[in-house]
């Protein structure tokens, strides 16, 4: 018999008799009067930055200035300007030099400051992780209260990859001292559009 059969048989023989799944009552969990305020407070407490903007005009200006600075800037937000599609086929050795990345996220989560990003919004799976600085754009109306609502709104099986990202890369492995910028982005700024 194969390992697969041995394992599955052993499990089938040894597992306890069937008990039902619980019903997750979504009304029984916390909600926030001001989800944006909660999102901002939590994200800033874990090293992220949050800026509320009326529309994309200001951010566009910053984006144009970033592009003109000569730094390697990648844009994956259609509303900001031309998309840098070439990143889709880029190798890690090239992407290592990416200074700043602009991406759009599907939603934000008030309870923990995370945003959900689909692979298609990243252009390249590696991009939000390997870039030095990450700029994320979300719409204010897309901030949900908790992870339960988040999973209701997204479909994790829709694309090949997706991630909740909550602030910049960090570690506390040396004497529990929090250091921002372990392997991934050194900063993460979320622009919330009214």
């Amino acid at each position, binding site marked *: 018999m*194969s*390992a697969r059969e*041995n*394992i*599955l048989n*052993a*499990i089938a*023989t*040894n*597992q*306890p008799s069937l*008990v*039902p*799944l*619980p019903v*997750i009552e979504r009304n*029984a*969990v*916390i909600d926030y009067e001001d989800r944006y305020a909660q999102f901002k407070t*939590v994200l800033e407490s*874990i090293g992220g930055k949050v800026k509320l903007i009326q529309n994309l005009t200001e951010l566009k200006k910053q984006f144009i200035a970033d592009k003109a600075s000569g730094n390697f800037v990648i844009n994956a937000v259609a509303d900001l300007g031309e998309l840098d599609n070439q990143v889709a086929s880029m190798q*890690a*050795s090239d992407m*290592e030099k990416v200074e700043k990345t602009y991406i759009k996220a599907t939603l934000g989560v008030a*309870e923990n*400051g*995370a945003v959900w990003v689909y692979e298609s919004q990243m252009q*390249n*799976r*590696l991009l939000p*992780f*390997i870039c030095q600085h990450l700029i994320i754009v979300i719409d204010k109306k897309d901030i949900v209260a*908790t*992870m*339960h609502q*988040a*999973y209701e709104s997204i479909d*994790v*099986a829709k*694309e*090949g*990859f*997706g*991630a*909740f*990202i*909550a602030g910049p*890369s*960090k*570690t506390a*492995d*040396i*004497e*529990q*001292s929090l*250091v921002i*910028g*372990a*392997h*991934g982005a050194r900063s993460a700024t979320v622009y919330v559009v009214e």
Partner: protein
Amino acid sequence: MKTTHSKLAEKFIADEPRTDWHDETLWFVREKRDKAAHGLPEWEQLREWASQIKNHTLSNLSDYLKEFEEKAKANGIIVHWAENGAEHNKIIHGIIQRHKIQKIVKSKSMLTEECHLNEYLQQYNIEVVDTDLGERIVQFRKEPPSHIVLPAIHLKKEDVSATFHEHLGTEKGNNDPQYLTEAARQHLRDKFVQSELAITGVNFAVAETGGFVVCTNEGNADMGAHTAAIHIACMGFEKIIPKAEHLGVFLRLLARSATGQPITTYSSHFQKPRPGQEMHIVIVDNGRSKQLSREDFRNSLKCIRCAACFNTCPVYRRSGGHSYHTAVAGPIGSILNPNLDMKANADLPFASTLCGSCTNVCPVKINIHEQLWKWRQVIAAEGYTDATKKIGMNAMAFLFSKPSLYRFAGKWGRWMMRIFPFVTNNKLNIWYKQREMPESPKESFRDWYLKNGKINRN
């Protein structure tokens, strides 16, 4: 038993200031956990849901695993099954050989530690670079992790500085965590960019979708998996959950219980390999189906490896992770490891005060301290307790079953301790180690009660 918890702990606590520091550091993490837990009014409800989801999953485990396999295959993931650590290692070695791989990066996976993958591959001159900062530090030092979430929690920044000076050429005596982390970042970026194969663990695998979730704060799993042409994810079969919506419950609990964070920085959902990439999953048993058969202990398979039980445990905090001589230390490790090798790990269920703090913080409500107590009984019945304990227990059982002899011995004992204290206060008495013996009363409670009990009742 070659090494025991108490012998190894003795070494650790020889350095008293360091023991105190270790204790305080972990208690600080425990306090952060409390703060995070109290921030959610539904915390206890979440624990209950998580526990029930896991109970249900264990009761339907074989079907969920089959469903997961089918969906994962449809997603283009190659699924392997390993009955034990050796098979797990062989499967990974086979993939490495087939592709003639040289550069391998690994993000933290306690399962690969459990299977001793690094050592196995070393025999074939294959080097695996651990990329979690804490894991990299202990890898340089040729030590195992001492904690499943905070692998280098036993080290001070001076230790890390010395290690990095030796291996990465950092400035001697520069103990700044920011500086040291930056050095590791630069060193590991090179490893990521060059990597051909990435190994990760699995935090949760979803039967419904055939995808899996990996949680890190550093982003090292993603840096490896999205760069390398081959990604191998290793999972113990208990990591399965039924549906994607259940991730909502577990991701809310995991980081809050582990470090007090509201969520890990990255919670990455792997569904399909990227174009041109090869994605493998190795599903490992290694004693888990046996634990499933032990009714008293199968609950331990609900564990999501948050290590809350480590951080709260008064014994772990004062004895250090290495004293448990196993990949998974702490209270949960003391339940899991006797299942893997009862004789070699017979000491671990005794490395506990049975205070129940571990059970109180467990996000999936595993009755940890009760299982520790149950293991003690199994281990004693199997004859795996050491000789001194056995003799002592037998002598006590004899004495306690003979009331008049017990009273006689008590009288003489009290007299002896008063008149000749050195009889008990000496090195041969292990109860005297790091402890003052109690002051011996003139009469026993029984004698006092016979005299005064009636009067006081009136």
